[in-house]
């Protein structure tokens, strides 16, 4: 863990938002909405919560993260690079021919990614397998897993929802990025998840809720989740805003995936972020 002061956190979050927006724009298209809704959460995990060693990405005792909504990979790549898992210069290659950083999280090519994901609904099962492996080995590490709200439509999540409490995987801490939007519109209109907290509680999970853009709320909630270890896995429902920070796209249907056909659109998206411009690290 690092000591990141509150003001440093805010500045880093703003810089990561800027960098991720630029990464996606320069590649010509990308899943910006669900990446920007996770900036504070992934930043908190890798700077304040998870036990990791950037110099030893395969460290056996490390905490794991499965980004089940693999399309949000650009923010995870950016945080990993800033945390020192690989050179920041790689970030400029997102989705480029021959890149190590493809659109969806890839453990085969990216140091620090713990599971390859991209087909929705599979990550919570994999995270359960990792948590089970830790239990079998008697390791103390936690396994984190971030699922999307649209992704929650997938039935496999609910197979894992039954499995993890049955196996008493209290080292599994999942997060639902509940930004209330999926590709075709609001989750409430496409396939309503409510009452979401009650569903997870009924499946035998601890359920916590937080505002996913408030660094103190996020930190407190993760610390609470880590302290539970009561024989149950924990689901944190993170209330977030899709494309948070981008004034054009924020909370808008259609923010899931953007096309950036020209430099003018690219500039518009950078300008839509409140605050300063940053020097790009690539």
């Amino acid at each position: 863990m690092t000591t990141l002061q509150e003001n440093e956190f805010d500045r880093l979050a703003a810089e990561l938002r800027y960098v991720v927006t630029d990464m996606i724009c320069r590649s010509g298209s990308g899943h910006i909405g669900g990446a920007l809704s996770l900036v504070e959460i992934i930043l908190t995990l890798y700077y304040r919560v998870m036990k990791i060693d950037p110099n030893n990405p395969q460290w056996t005792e490390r905490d794991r993260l499965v980004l089940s909504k693999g399309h949000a990979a650009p923010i995870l790549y950016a945080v990993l690079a800033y945390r020192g898992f690989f050179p920041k210069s790689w970030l400029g290659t997102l989705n480029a021919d021959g890149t190590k950083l493809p659109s969806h999280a890839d453990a085969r090519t990216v140091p620090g990614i713990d599971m390859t994901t991209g087909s929705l609904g599979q990550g919570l099962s994999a995270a359960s397998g990792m948590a089970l492996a830790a239990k079998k080995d008697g390791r103390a590490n936690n396994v984190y897993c971030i699922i999307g709200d649209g992704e929650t439509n997938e039935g496999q999540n609910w197979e894992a929802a039954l499995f993890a409490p049955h196996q008493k995987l209290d080292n599994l801490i999942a997060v639902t990025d509940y930004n209330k939007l999926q590709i075709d519109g609001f989750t409430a209109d496409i396939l309503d998840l409510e009452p979401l907290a009650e569903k997870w509680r009924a499946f035998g999970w601890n359920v916590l809720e937080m505002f996913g853009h408030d660094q103190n709320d996020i930190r407190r909630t993760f610390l609470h989740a880590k302290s539970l270890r009561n024989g149950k896995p924990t689901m944190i429902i993170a209330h977030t805003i899709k494309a948070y920070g981008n004034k054009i796209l924020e909370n808008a249907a259609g923010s899931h995936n953007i096309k950036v056909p020209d430099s003018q659109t690219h500039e518009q998206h950078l300008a839509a972020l409140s605050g300063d411009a940053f020097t790009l690290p690539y």
Partner: protein
Amino acid sequence: MNLKNLHEQEIRLVYGHVLNELIEKNPNVFCLEADLSKASGTNPIVLNAHPKNFINIGVAEANMIGVAAGLASDGKIPFCATFCCFATRRVYDQITISVAYANNNVKIIGTGPGITQGPNGGTHMCFQDIAIMRAMPNMRIFSPCDAYEVRSVLHYMAENYGGMYMQLLRQQLPAVFDEHYQFQPGKARKLRDGNDVTLVSTGYMTHFALKVADELAKEGVGVDLLHCPSIKPFPEDDLIESVRKTNAAVTVENQNMIGGLGGAVCETLSERYPVRVKRLGVPDRFGEIATEEYLFEKHGFGMEHIKQSCRELAKK
């Protein structure tokens, strides 16, 4: 486990005993089941001997593959067993992404291949698992024919990294090999030597093919019998060596004729050494509840059909 008499047992029990052997050799080997552990032969054999290495996931095959991928990413070697239909087609995307694409060390065991699902009927009778698994990159596919070969393939699977699929016959079957058998991926086994026609078989059909070859020998038809336990990698060179001699090949499999063993033979020969080929198997139909005799007759891949095709292609 008495290695000399493995063929006297149901092969599913051999699966259970071999898993115990593998776990005793390497405690990272895990047995995953989806509520069919008695059918797979691991309950009570593995459950009692190694309860810590036995995980019943419940009737949730997608989750089984995902959990296996997570275990494998932490150095475990999970063997996931269920009926062929659920082990492959039901979880095709989970295997594709979480196992093959992600390159996780997960072993998948499909039990009761093809017509051996008899009493469960058409919904459970899977004729396409070999074909669909062949079409998946980074996946090895094996279809052993007897208890000794099952044991050797399982050892190979545990000792070598990567996603692999094996068809597991559940019933007791006659011995084709013995306790000295050593499986080699990408190699065929020459079971009979002959100059007139190449007969290529795999899995359940091999012990029938052996009888056919012996009976045809008495008629003066020389069958060069290749058994292919390794569907992928496919033993291309062994096949070509045989057809250089015979100039004709008959294939027989307990699968749809599209995309399986016959498909692999045709792909290989049409590109490298074109000769006449006759494929036997299920002609692009679903299964149904029926006896083996009825199904062989209906679909045309019983011993008489194999014989007739071999005779025809041996003439040329």
